[in-house]
């Protein structure tokens, strides 16, 4: 920013502040925050947004702006840390960089950094961060190999940090998420040895001991997670209400009325709505779509591609285009190439129940 621009910006900033003192509206807060963005004062942006969020909690624009400013701050810090590491690497810098990368969801980069740190120093903390990064990747992709590797890293970290509860806590988290309750109980008992009398651990121990009788082994549990694409505690989360018949059917009817479209299908759990084919043929279509989604989601995880977002089959039968959502899937069978409108309609239909789907990092 040049000297003249800075003078103008200071004048504008004063104006925005006086406007805000006259009326504390969301718009005035946003305009003040944006002026700070232009001046590159990210900490000020965050402060203004936090003040505004106290008055207008949950405002989406303010939340987006504060999140974006935090992200920019993290990016600046990451750049600075990379520069310092190139000049003179030391464990504290590696640690901060790994933490920053994990906080911004850049899991692969974080693991890369932790690997470099571990190679250079062989520290237990570096191994723990490797485990944490791999664990995050496993929880996002639900890939068995990732889970197994995360557990291997945790075991190595436990050996390097024998009296530290942090590796045990991470191991416990993995076991709990995959539903390996017997192993979770074993880890909790070790945690209680390190931190005796902790009421939180004791309560967890009591809760887990009721489930550990018929708990699967770790490998079995990991295999199940990869197959279903669900973690053990996913069932406990309240599902969004199923969309009503009235909201799905018109969209399916619109799709099937498009030229070249022979069938449109919506599948959610055991329920299916089919437009186009009738009776047993409709049932067969729904079953085929469900099976294709199930097999493809598993294949995508095993192939290391993460969560499947679109499946398309082409052959002498035409094209079957499927949009798999978190809870529901939508598909069309057509005799010409699908275009962007079809894709968008399917994504909307599949996302009706799941809300905004988050993309795996």
């Amino acid at each position, binding site marked *: 920013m040049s000297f003249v621009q800075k003078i103008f910006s200071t004048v504008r900033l004063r104006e925005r502040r006086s406007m805000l003192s006259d009326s504390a509206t969301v718009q005035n807060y946003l305009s003040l925050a944006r002026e700070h963005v232009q001046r590159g004062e990210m900490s000020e942006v965050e402060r203004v947004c936090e003040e505004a969020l106290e008055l207008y909690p949950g405002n989406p624009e303010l939340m987006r702006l504060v999140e974006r400013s935090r992200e920019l701050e993290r990016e600046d810090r990451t750049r600075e840390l990379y520069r310092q590491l190139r000049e003179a690497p030391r464990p504290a810098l590696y640690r901060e960089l790994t933490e920053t990368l994990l906080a911004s969801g850049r899991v692969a980069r974080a693991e890369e950094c932790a690997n470099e740190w571990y190679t250079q120093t062989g520290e237990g903390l570096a191994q723990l961060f490797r485990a944490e990064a791999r664990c995050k990747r496993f929880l996002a992709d639900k890939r068995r190999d990732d889970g197994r590797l995360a557990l291997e890293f945790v075991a190595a970290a436990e050996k390097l940090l024998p009296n530290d509860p942090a590796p045990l806590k991470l191991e416990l988290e993995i076991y709990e998420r995959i539903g390996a309750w017997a192993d979770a109980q074993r880890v909790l008992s070790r945690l209680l040895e390190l931190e005796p009398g902790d009421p939180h651990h004791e309560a967890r121990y009591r809760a887990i001991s009721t489930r550990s009788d018929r708990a699967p082994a770790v490998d079995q549990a990991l295999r199940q997670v990869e197959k279903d694409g669900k973690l053990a505690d996913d069932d406990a989360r309240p599902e969004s209400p199923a969309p009503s018949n009235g909201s799905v059917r018109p969209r399916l009817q619109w799709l099937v009325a498009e030229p070249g479209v022979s069938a449109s299908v919506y599948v959610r759990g055991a329920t299916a709505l089919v437009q186009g084919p009738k009776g047993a043929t409709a049932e067969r279509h729904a079953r085929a779509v469900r099976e294709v989604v199930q097999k493809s989601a598993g294949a*995508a995880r095993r192939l290391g591609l*993460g969560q499947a977002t679109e499946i*398309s089959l082409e052959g002498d039968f035409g094209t079957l285009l499927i949009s798999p959502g978190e809870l529901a899937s939508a598909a069309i069978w057509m005799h010409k190439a699908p275009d962007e409108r079809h894709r968008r309609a399917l994504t909307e239909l599949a996302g009706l129940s799941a809300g905004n789907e988050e993309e795996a990092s």
Partner: protein
Amino acid sequence: MIEVLDPLSKIPGVRLAVLVAPDGVPVCVRGKHAEEPQDGTREDIDSLAALATGWHCELARAVAPLSWNMPQRVVLRAARGTLVMLAVPGAVLVAICDRGASPDELRLPMEAAVARMQRILRGMGERGASSSDPQSLPGGALPSRASDQDPGLIHVDNRSSDSPSGSGQD
């Protein structure tokens, strides 16, 4: 077969191109413009080929009750990349692309690769058929067991070489 896959590997965004033969042997070419995975891990080609072809068979089984034939082209878009699979008689061509790459841009190059592969196989088949004809074999430097077992040919040769000299002496 590497030269069949080589043009695919030059397309930006293609991470890996694998041709899986009917006997399950994969031939793989890595993308020249592909980014190295950030975590340093590289795909295990054998398991990738097995998983991809296994998944293709599962898809064929899933759509079989609809009286549909095996899908010829399958695209699987996912969070970390896209898999494009083209099934041809006797082989499966698999390409794995980066997240931003469009699978439609691979349609023509993959079909061209398949056409090239079939042309090579056809050429090999024709050469194989012509090489099975015994008359087209070049003659060996030394008499072989096979030529010894052909009495008519030896007999004719001996006679033709002896008779002119005999007649000359007479």
